[in-house]
């Protein structure tokens, strides 16, 4: 069986499973559509949240970013897990006690203001839609690569599948589908990592292998890696190179953004009890940590494998020959990926060998001149291909490659579906039922939810075809917005009775606007190319890149809300009572419809 058929088989079988579950668990009532009738066990909910949270960025992109940068990209690991501590301690149990369906409903009720609810809906929609565009981009590329079709058709097929189970299944369908997706994606991520860890360190657990000894040399794996990358003129893998302030703010932005993303928060409305909401956050992180503890090992081991493949006899011996790359089956992956345009090499000095080194490093000039090197000849290595190409790089069997294909798609699709659910509930529940047509029947509300989901998919596909920028830019905007607008409003709503309607609205708007402006200043106004006034290489505020600004936006939100609340009318007594009741678990019933 050839690789194409194998990929098709794995992807096809996993999809049949997801769609089957969606049909089996079809939602009947509004409350089932949004929150699965609150019958979801904390462990099940945790697994679904993990699938929901870990997107194409975690599965496909993160290990590659770590592999080529090393320590400096640890921010992704700490940021995307540390947010769960904030969620579990500061938000989840209270929002569950509050007992409504959506995040903006809480903000609207707590700040007794329809304006506050509207502002929250806007923040939520912008953050979710930009995030879903990034996912659809990933879906298109992954489908295109593994089904060997154009990315355009990959995107359309992906959109149809997401539509099918998100629209017809609702939350309950999505919850169980996401459990299945979690199982697929974690298996797909772990199996190749275990193989590679065994090859390199003899330890079957990749997370331990990372700090273990390299089998070939007997040295610690990381010491070996440091030595080989510095020999080639690259920055030491385990050392810090970037700005400390920027790293702190970037990590903090990712953490706060995690706790402010509506599709993740919504998950905690679906557990039966307040105490379950606390456990549920822990279980989510258990399932996320299984991937996040493996990811740095995947990155480091892949970097070592690639370096050794390019220098099969060590960095002092001649490099790999062009002939070997073209004929040796161990190097077959290079030709495969070259076709995608994401990997490239060029024998610049015509010596029949491909020298891979850092030609920008002045320390290597003498060595390069002495050996007749004419610059780095591994001219292109896109970071996003690393995880997908990893099993091929390590010469693992074909079924592992098929499995990784199915896993990458599971990660992208599950997140897209969760985001679409958040978008549809914001439109049908908060915008239509909450504001425009309060007397809507349950049936027409469900219909509106489905129509808005379909509309959101159409928008995401259109923007996914002509994205406003790279996926990383879109994701940065989504995180920055969630961190600067939603999280502070929720936290202050629970922990302070002093913050009033005017303060909350002013805070959210200030956080949102200041973050948007900072991002647009660096990435271009509304992401139109060449309209930026600064670059992330030389940011407006010292070392603070636009991706790190969400934390500052959140601080602005807090400060403005406090000052404005101090100058305006005090919170009425019934709202203070509401806050008091949210803080106490007793009396948490099933969620009730908003009015």
């Amino acid at each position, binding site marked *: 069986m050839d690789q194409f058929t194998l990929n098709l088989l794995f992807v096809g079988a996993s999809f049949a499973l997801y769609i089957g579950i969606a049909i089996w668990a079809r939602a009947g009532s509004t409350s089932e559509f949004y929150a699965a009738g609150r019958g979801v066990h904390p462990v099940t909910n945790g697994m679904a949240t993990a699938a929901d949270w870990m997107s194409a960025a975690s599965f496909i992109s993160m290990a590659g970013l770590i592999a080529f940068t090393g*320590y400096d990209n*640890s921010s992704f*690991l*700490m940021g995307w*897990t*540390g947010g*769960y*501590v904030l969620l*579990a*301690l*500061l938000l989840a*149990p209270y929002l569950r006690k509050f007992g409504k369906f959506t995040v903006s409903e809480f903000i609207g009720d707590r700040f007794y203001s329809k304006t506050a609810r509207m502002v929250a809906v806007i923040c939520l929609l912008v953050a979710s839609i930009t995030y879903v565009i990034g996912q659809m981009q990933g879906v298109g590329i992954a489908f295109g690569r593994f089904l060997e079709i154009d990315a355009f058709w990959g995107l359309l097929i992906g959109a149809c599948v997401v539509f099918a189970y998100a629209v017809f299944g609702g939350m309950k369908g999505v919850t169980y589908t996401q459990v299945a997706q979690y199982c697929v994606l974690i298996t797909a991520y772990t199996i190749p990592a275990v193989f590679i860890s065994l090859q390199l360190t003899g330890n079957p657990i990749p*997370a331990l292998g*990372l*700090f*273990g*000894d390299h089998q070939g040399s007997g*040295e*610690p*794996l*990381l*010491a*070996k*890696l*440091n030595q080989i990358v510095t020999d080639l003129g690259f920055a030491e893998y*385990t050392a*810090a190179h970037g700005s*400390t302030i920027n*790293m*702190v703010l970037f*990590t*903090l932005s990712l953490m706060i953004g995690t706790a402010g993303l509506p599709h993740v928060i919504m998950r905690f409305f679906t557990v039966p*009890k*307040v*105490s379950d909401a*606390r*456990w549920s*956050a*822990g279980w989510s*992180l*258990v399932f996320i*940590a299984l991937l*996040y*503890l493996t990811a*740095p090992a995947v990155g480091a081991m892949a970097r070592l494998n690639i370096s050794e493949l390019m220098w099969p006899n060590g960095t002092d011996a001649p490099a790999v020959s062009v002939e070997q790359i073209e004929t040796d089956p161990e190097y077959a992956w290079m030709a495969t990926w070259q076709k995608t345009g994401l990997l490239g090499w060029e024998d610049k000095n015509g010596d029949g060998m491909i020298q891979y080194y850092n030609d920008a490093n002045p320390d290597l000039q003498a060595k390069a001149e002495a050996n007749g090197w004419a610059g780095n000849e591994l001219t292109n290595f896109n970071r996003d291909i690393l995880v997908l190409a990893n099993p091929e790089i390590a010469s693992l069997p074909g079924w592992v490659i098929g499995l990784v294909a199915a896993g990458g798609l599971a990660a992208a699709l599950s997140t897209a579906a969760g985001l679409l659910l958040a978008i549809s509930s914001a439109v049908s529940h908060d915008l239509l039922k909450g504001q425009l047509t309060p007397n809507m029947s349950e049936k027409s509300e469900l219909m509106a939810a489905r129509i808005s989901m379909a509309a959101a998919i159409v928008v995401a596909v259109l923007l996914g075809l002509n994205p406003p920028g790279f996926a990383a830019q879109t994701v940065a905007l989504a995180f920055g917005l969630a961190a600067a607008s939603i999280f502070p409003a929720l936290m202050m709503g629970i922990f302070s009775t002093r913050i009033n309607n005017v303060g909350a609205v002013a805070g959210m708007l200030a956080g949102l606007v200041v973050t948007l402006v900072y991002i647009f200043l660096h990435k271009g106004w509304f992401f139109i190319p060449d309209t930026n006034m600064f670059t992330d290489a030389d940011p407006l505020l010292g070392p603070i890149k636009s991706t790190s600004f969400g934390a500052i936006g959140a601080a602005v939100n807090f400060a403005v809300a406090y000052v404005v609340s101090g100058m305006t009318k005090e919170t009425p007594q019934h709202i203070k009572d509401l806050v*008091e009741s949210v*803080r*106490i*678990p*007793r*009396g*948490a019933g099933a969620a009730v419809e908003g009015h």
Partner: protein
Amino acid sequence: MVDHSVDTSETATKDAGYWSTNIRIIGICLAIWAIVSFGFGIILRPLLSGISVGGADLGFWFAQQGSILVFLALIFFYAWRMNRLDKQYGVDEE
């Protein structure tokens, strides 16, 4: 009416005790959360460079794995501690 107001104020005092204990637990947990990630993982890393962990230093380990494990422990500790506190103050859901 008078009796009720006494009840309410007693409940209020009890609830205030519950809430201030909760705030204290959250404060301690978040302090640990910040120390392992922003502290050991980033800012204090140079101070820990003497302690080596499998080819790297302790700060590197905290940044790539250690903080995640501590985050897990914190969330489960908080859930366990709060469920106990709920019962202690009689505000649990049973």
